């Protein structure tokens, strides 16, 4: 690559990033009510008691977007999307166990 190329940096959406309910809703392009439903369904687990105090970790954005796409693309309802996400988590955990070399 030629020298002088400008590289842009982004924000890594890890556990050090926290989002409020409003920020998360805007980032996903959905209403706050929809995000609250995701919390009620157990898909997202924010810190804090009241919705106005909720803080979501960076990974919540990926989960919310995945749920949104599953609902839109595969015509799932929220409970179905929540189930799919839980199963995907379980597959990922099993993959990690394989990588760690655990039986």
């Amino acid at each position, binding site marked *: *690559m030629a020298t002088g190329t400008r590289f*842009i*940096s982004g924000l*890594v*959406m*890890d556990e050090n990033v926290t989002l409020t309910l409003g920020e998360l809703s805007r980032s996903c*392009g959905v209403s706050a009510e929809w995000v609250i439903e995701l919390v009620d369904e157990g898909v997202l687990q924010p810190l804090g008691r009241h919705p106005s105090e909720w803080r979501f970790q960076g990974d919540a954005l990926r989960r919310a977007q995945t749920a949104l796409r599953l609902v839109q693309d*595969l015509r799932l309802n929220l409970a179905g999307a929540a189930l799919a996400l839980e199963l995907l988590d379980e597959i990922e955990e099993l993959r*990690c166990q394989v*990588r760690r070399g655990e039986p």
Partner: protein
Amino acid sequence: MEFKDYYRILGVSRDASQDDIKRAYRKLARKYHPDVSKEADAEQRFKEVGEAYEVLKDPEKRKAYDQFGANWKEGQEFRPPPGWEHGFEFSGGGFTDTADFSDFFEALFGRAARARHRSGFRARGEDQVARVTIDLEDAYRGATRAIGLTVPELSPEGHVVNRPRTLNVKIPAGITEGQRIRLAGQGAPGIGNGPPGDLYLEVVIRPHRLFRLDKRDIYLDLPVTPWEVALGATVTVPTLGGNVELKIPAGSQNDRKLRLKGRGLPGDPPGDQYVILKLVTPPADSEQARAFYERMARELPMNPRRDMGG
């Protein structure tokens, strides 16, 4: 442009019923959904399947498409005959975002998509997700990548054209599998005067010859000899940061896990490297070696199957 064989993409015959087409689509949509599938080209396949269904689910579009007959082959150079769409009225795309579809689709059925974009409506551009594949060494040290994207744009004539675009992106050290990097304002352009969406880069890390990755921790299988585990030893172990010396405690067994603190991917806190001892025994392939094993059997008797009642 290249001809697209929508029947082949959905894996149905040309005389498939609308129900068969729907079932084939739904099954493939679940299989290749980018959030479900781990396949590298899942996103591309999912779009292709969506495009095929967009045409074949609509009896009018299907009829129009069918007049090209079965003689066309996937990938063949294709130009629609002038005035070919005469007599067909397309109702336009439904839920699917046709802006991502191929030039082939746009040439045949693009009018509906254009009508939608002309309505003087203002909206924030869509967020996009792209996958970037890096080596484990890149995740350890950080890297830069040129990301190729296509951006749907409206030409002055009102056609949707896919403009190729390259983004040079810094990938920070310590990024792990599946994490996303948000690049604000680098997503799809807004509609009207709306702001652009964001681009999310999802990181995929290529499997490594030696190391396995779990979040920020690294796992390494280390072959060791019987005398190294029995008597203890100091051995050289590769890590992403270079070789280090590891002390194997005397009396270790196969599968013992030893931790090299902070030798995983950088971060706050950094990951660790786990070394898993894998006992390798020398072959009894000579008279001398056999005699040595026989002596061990006599002088070091043990029954490893005692707990099995053996």
